């Protein structure tokens, strides 16, 4: 039983039953979750910003940080667990991308993150089957590899599933 904790810009995967893949306190960051029923592998990337063109060096060092580099990096990692290289059969779920109250367009980083992720997913013919995006609170995400179950939590709220 292990815990794989992903920080901002990290990505990871596991097929070990009993493992949990976790990330804490998503704000405007978006968590991209890949579940592969065939190989029973769970993958996640903690995406901070939409577009790697603002800092190529950072994208090389931490591909999970940007939407456009996170999805290919996570797919490549999943392939090592026997998943299809273009994501065939993988179930995609998204969460996070929160705003502050009364936000304006500039501060909708969460929305831009989610859009950029969807765009790159489309280029692989992939799309999210469920999502919990936006609103104005932080989300902690925990995925159990055995059950493929995604549990979300936020202070003062009962836990919920995605």
């Amino acid at each position, binding site marked *: 039983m292990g815990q794989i904790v992903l920080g*901002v*810009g990290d990505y990871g995967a596991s097929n070990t039953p009993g493992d949990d893949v976790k990330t*804490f*306190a*998503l*704000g*405007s*960051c978006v968590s991209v979750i890949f579940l592969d029923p065939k190989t029973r592998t769970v993958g996640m990337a903690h995406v*901070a*910003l*939409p*577009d790697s063109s*603002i*800092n190529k060096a*950072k994208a090389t060092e931490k591909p999970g*940080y940007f939407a456009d580099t996170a999805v290919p990096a996570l797919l490549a990692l999943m392939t090592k667990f026997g998943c299809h290289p273009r994501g065939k059969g993988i179930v995609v779920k998204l969460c996070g991308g*929160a*705003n*502050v*109250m*009364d*936000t*304006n*367009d*500039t*501060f909708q*980083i*969460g929305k*831009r993150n989610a859009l950029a992720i969807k765009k790159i997913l489309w280029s692989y013919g992939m799309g999210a089957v469920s999502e919990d995006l936006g609103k*104005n*609170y*932080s989300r902690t995400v925990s995925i159990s590899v055995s059950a493929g179950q995604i549990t979300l939590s936020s*202070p*003062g*709220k009962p836990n919920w599933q995605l």
Partner: protein
Amino acid sequence: MTKQITQEELQKIVQSIPMLSASASQLLQVASQPDHDLMDIVNLVRNDAHLTARVLKIVNSAAFGLVNNIASIDRAVSYLGERVVVSIAIADCSSKVFEKELSGYESAGGVLWKHDLRTAIAAREVVIQSGADINSELAFTAGLLHDIGKALISDYLHGTVTDAIELLTAEEDLDYLDAEEKLAGFDHTRAGYELAKAWQLPDELAEVIRHHHEPSNAKEEFRALVYAVHLGDNIAMLGGFGTGSDSMRYKLDRKYTDYIDIGPKTLATIMLNVDIEFEKLEGSFHSSGEKN
């Protein structure tokens, strides 16, 4: 229902907080004077042997990765910059405030300091990247102090998180300041302002503490600075470094555009720089100072 804080109790809480050290207090005064220079800071540090030792230890810590040790205090201060030196002085004498466990927000000890440091870095980045006519070093210092009020009222908010969230879910127009006031009697900006007065902080810093959630109510002469910290605070929360249950449950004061011009791309650059700078500074404050 929790106990409401009365005005007298708030004064007692404020008095229970240790005063700033003389050096920290003087550094804050000097830092808010528009025409000071770095030598004024150096001279203040030099007069405090303990602070001098701390500054030298931090500049020579592994986090900064210097090839040759810095032994002179003026070189150390100019290398670290005014903002880092002021932070060291504040952190040193008020760890009781910054390291406090915020149980009223369901946050562990150290979370407030991290949020404050993120806010400080982000406020400075906002000024630099936007080119706004605001003292970026002072924006940093103000960011560090903006939420001190949370440490004062947190204990009184213990056990209220579910009630607070239910209230804010039922009444969408309310923010966490409203919840704090309803549940504890004071919100963290008003409580923090009382501490600012007791600490005799310069007016601009007190103004940031009081109005960082609605800078349009700040005094005109300090308003741009308050906006810089306001944006820094929002950037810290969006980046996943809030202080717990209240994270992102505040309003953006959209009139910031009258003072600070940033677009989506600049904001992305700011957020990335904040991550990079935070890692460096966080490490240096917590390092043992041993490099060899």
